[in-house]
């Protein structure tokens, strides 16, 4: 079984509300996976469970063959950038690099320094004073330089302006190129995923609507619907999400434009 993430009937309940309910999915290794779905589909919960921030209420989840965050070895293998790309506001950029070096045995100092120099970040700058895009890049640097086998990114570009968004995804693509790293990237902006992802999972209300290689999904969809060669990934995602919504309820299309 060549899966980086294996969820079986995973559910997560907060008091009365289920944030994720009976979710079963498998994510293959060596891919850059785009996880899309409407707000409330359970994407953030799923990634938090995979990173070991949360523990499932029901079912089981395995990441790289072990329970998330169950040991130091497991922690070392997974890089996680949480929603809103958290950093310590009071610590400088240099402090963050030091933090990464102190707390991760596999720390790639050259990679981290190289990225900070390339991004032209002032090492003495406090992270709280960085722009949203710079903060996201710093958080990504921390996750990358621990040299994980799996990188989990939860809506890392959601709050960024188009320019910063493009730069962030460009950084990600550069990093992935030539490395045996698996990536799971969630977003509700399909156009972002189109740039970097080669595998797509559409999650609606904890259920996988479709999962597969982007190129194959597009080809199959064209065949089935007779759509032209200009069929975009976005059209495809929307089609699957419409399918999932119960009759009488209109899908919230605005969010995906």
């Amino acid at each position: 079984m060549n899966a980086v993430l294996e969820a079986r009937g995973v559910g997560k309940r907060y008091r009365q509300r289920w944030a994720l309910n009976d979710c079963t999915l498998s994510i293959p290794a060596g891919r850059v996976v785009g996880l899309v779905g409407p707000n409330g589909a359970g994407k953030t919960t799923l990634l938090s469970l995979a990173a070991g921030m949360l523990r499932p209420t029901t079912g089981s989840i395995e990441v790289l063959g072990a329970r998330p965050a169950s040991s130091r070895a497991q922690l070392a293998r997974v890089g996680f950038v949480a929603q809103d790309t958290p950093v310590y506001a009071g610590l400088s950029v240099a402090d963050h690099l030091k933090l990464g070096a102190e707390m991760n045995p596999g720390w790639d100092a050259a990679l981290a320094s190289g990225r900070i120099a390339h991004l032209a970040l002032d090492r003495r700058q406090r992270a709280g004073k960085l722009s949203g895009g710079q903060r996201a890049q710093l958080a990504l640097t921390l996750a990358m330089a621990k040299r994980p086998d799996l990188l989990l990114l939860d809506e890392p570009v959601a709050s960024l302006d188009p320019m910063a968004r493009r730069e962030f995804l460009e950084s990600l693509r550069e990093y992935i190129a030539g490395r045996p790293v698996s990536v799971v990237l969630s977003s509700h902006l399909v156009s972002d995923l189109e740039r970097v992802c080669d595998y797509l999972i559409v999650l609606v209300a904890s259920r996988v609507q479709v999962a597969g290689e982007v190129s194959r999904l597009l080809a199959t969809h064209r065949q089935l619907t007779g759509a032209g060669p200009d069929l975009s990934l976005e059209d495809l995602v929307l089609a699957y999400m419409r399918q999932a919504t119960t009759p009488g309820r209109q899908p919230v299309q605005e969010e995906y434009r």
Partner: protein
Amino acid sequence: MTWLTWRQSRAQIIAAAAALAVIAIILALTGPHLASLYDTSGVATCQAHDNCDTVVSTFLNELSKGTVVLYFTGIVVVVLIPALIGVFWGAPLVTREIEARTLPLAWNQTVTRTRWMAVKLGLGALTAMATAGLLSLMLTWWSGPLDSAAALGTSKLGLSRLGPVLFAARGITPVGYAAFAFVLGVIAGVLIGRTISAMATTLAGFAVIQVAWANWIRPHLIAPVHAIAALNPANIYLVRVKDNQMLISATPSSGQQGAWVLSSQITDNAGRPFHGAPPAGCPVNLHQCAAGIGSLHLRQLIIYQPASRYWTLQWYETAIFLAAAVALAGFCAWRVRHLAD
């Protein structure tokens, strides 16, 4: 992990060190004068000369107003410092990270949550203990002359070294309280999750524990001594008569100098509490009354902790609070695994 914890608490540690340095300078400048006043006052040898009341009162009158203010301020500061440490260092330790949403960052490094919590608790508790310990050490030294004078005779300061207030402000007990209050603050933060509520809960919780401890637990940490002695009429300071019953209040006899008297009761010859009728003259004619009381052969039952137990009690209490801190820290490290669940 140690580096991050140090980096995050650096500002607090430096501030605490600076405050301690300022206090040390003030005490070092004023302490020697206070000590020399004490040496020349004859308080140290007053028991041999049997003139403690006058010598102590002369010594206290010689003190400047500033010295007296400093003495009482010092007591207040040492008593409050553990609570302040719990509120301002303990409570925000984890809630700050919850509120700034930095936990996913901290918990995704190659450090388990248990270790993360253990290092934060360990370093924080050591800082808390060092701060409270140094403060107590300095003030115990500086206040030595005044504490000794207060323990002798009928002191105007009215403080016993073993009493509820002074016991918590001297010696090593502040070290135990500081560690306990710090961990209490952290656990409040972990359980409540919001800084302000955790701070308020810590303050209230620690205050209740300290008051309850001083009043109901410390007196019985070691079984107190019961002493019965003939009532010395010279020790009587108040005689009240109500409904033809006489109530006598008397200071403990001189054998319990500096002791923490928990209760003092006047009994009859057989050891039963005395509620008898007043002899002729009481309470109006003092001379006749005193003679009448003398003929009743009353006794005085005193329950007290002798002054000689001071350090034993200090060690007991410190050890108990440190053990409680360790137990709470263990619970905290266990509980943090479920944090954000």
